[in-house]
């Protein structure tokens, strides 16, 4: 009997083949539709040949072409998928690192001081549920730069999970370990670095993992709004070109990159985990 993971892998493959098979077959049946043009097709200039959902074979062909030269750059509306993804990843990481720089120290402060927690909690509770995209107009007005505004939106949406998890992790460090630091006369800074940080690290990393996931969700929408570059803009642009194979391929790539970001944080999480 093969192991569960081998069997699960085989089953996944079966599902994939079934799914792609039905898709491929389905699109071929619908495609050669003849007769009167519908109102929609009239509006689209009779462009049904391009606008139909492409079969997977076409998407795979498209993917191979794109991935064989992912980083080309032929002017503002014609960049490789790799280049577009790189823009998005750059924005996500910049906003995320900025959020980290604020959320970790602030989280420590809130976690260590019940007074600060009480004082700042109302603001956090009001700011946290705001859709990050709601900040976009204000950001565009204040920062006057679409690139920076997108980064700011990422910053804002990444900050909350990290801040709250850091505060929670720090506040709940076992008193025994804090007492170990106290009986060894560690300074507050040393206590924070050598005892509280490693003790709270798994909780903090969980917050960071949630944050990067949200950031990756938000960047696509943000780039659709501000335009210019990035995978979000690219998807929107391809939709406007009615290049659906490209749209579907991009959607897949968004999923893959999101998964890789999550995997990276998951690895980091493993590194700081400890068993009691």
């Amino acid at each position, binding site marked *: 009997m093969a192991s569960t993971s081998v069997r699960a892998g085989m089953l996944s493959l079966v599902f994939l083949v079934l799914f792609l098979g039905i898709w491929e077959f389905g699109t071929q049946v619908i495609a050669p539709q003849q007769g009167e043009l519908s109102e929609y097709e009239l509006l689209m200039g009779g462009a049904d040949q391009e606008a139909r959902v492409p079969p997977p074979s076409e998407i795979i062909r498209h993917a191979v072409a794109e991935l064989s030269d992912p980083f080309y750059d032929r002017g503002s509306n014609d960049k490789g998928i790799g280049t577009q993804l790189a823009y998005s990843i750059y924005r996500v990481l910049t906003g995320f690192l900025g959020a980290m720089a604020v959320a970790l120290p602030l989280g420590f402060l809130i976690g260590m001081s019940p007074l600060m927690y009480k004082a700042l909690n109302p603001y956090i509770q009001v700011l946290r549920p705001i859709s990050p995209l709601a900040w976009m107009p204000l950001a565009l007005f204040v920062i006057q730069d679409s690139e920076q505004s997108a980064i700011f939106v990422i910053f804002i949406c990444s900050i909350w999970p990290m801040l709250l998890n850091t505060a929670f992790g720090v506040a709940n460090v076992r008193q025994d370990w804090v007492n170990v630091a106290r*009986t060894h006369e560690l300074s507050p800074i040393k206590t924070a670095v050598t005892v509280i940080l490693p003790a709270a690290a798994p909780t903090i990393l969980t917050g960071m993992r949630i944050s990067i996931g949200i950031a990756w969700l938000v960047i696509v929408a943000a780039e659709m709004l501000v335009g210019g570059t990035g995978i979000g803009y690219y998807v929107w642009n391809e939709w406007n070109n009615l290049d659906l194979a490209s749209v579907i391929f991009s959607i897949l790539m968004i999923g893959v990159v999101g998964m890789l970001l999550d995997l990276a944080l998951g690895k980091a999480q493993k590194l700081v985990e400890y*068993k009691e």
Partner: protein
Amino acid sequence: MSKSFLEVDGLSKVYPDGQGGDLTVFEDIRFALQKGEFVCIIGHSGCGKSTILNVLAGLDESSSGNVVMNGKEVKGPGLERGVVFQNYSLLPWKTALNNIIFAVKARWPSWSKDKVREHSERYLKMVGLDHAMDRKPSQLSGGMRQRVSIARAFATQPELLLLDEPFGALDALTRGVIQDELVKIWEETRQTVFMITHDVDEAILLSDRIFLMSNGPNARIAESVRVNLPHPRSRATIFQNPAHQKIRHYLVDFLVNRSGSAQPDEDGTPKVIDPSDGDAVPQRVAAEPEAETETTAKAVNA
């Protein structure tokens, strides 16, 4: 004033009782420790032993009274006082050796890396754990963890070692082995130790004196019992000494019959008792020599 190493003067701890009044857990605790003494404190659960120990450690504050060590008032925790907690309190993300290195580095920040490591390894060897140096606490048994914790406390060579029921969570066999190790380390280092235990035999094996606490609320340290047995002691042979039986019966009698009513001397200091001097043994105990209590039944010769 006398010049004892540690002077505890009139400690009390008061908590609000939840109905608008006060609950005095213990009051007017007075005692002194001499340098190099091993003193155990026994008393029923809840009488405030841990609180007293935490006040000595500087981790808790008393409601009144003060603690003076080496002529300086104890305010807050310090490296000259080492603590071994019942739940080991090892840092779980560090290996056994690194837990000790952590403490040694804090104690002697100017030491070189090699010196810190060498010193730490020596203490880990003393508790027989050199083979488990690189294991994390989660990979060690309860007994091994407590040995690391004891090694950590001894490694920093504090002037006063405070142990709060260090073997309370261990099975009897393991406890016996570690008691032997503690005897060995203590004979080597002759550090001043203040230890809480609920195990009468453990107290007799280890201590020079045993403090007996009356029941709370308003608990006091009523008596200070001298353990007149020669060092070095061993678990295997200590029972053969006739004084051992007398001391043991005295302690058991106190815990069973007198802990509710016992009071210290007029001046507030514990009554000094030496059960090995026959007259001090109360009549009642001589009449029922096999008085066993829950406290002792758990403990006997592991």
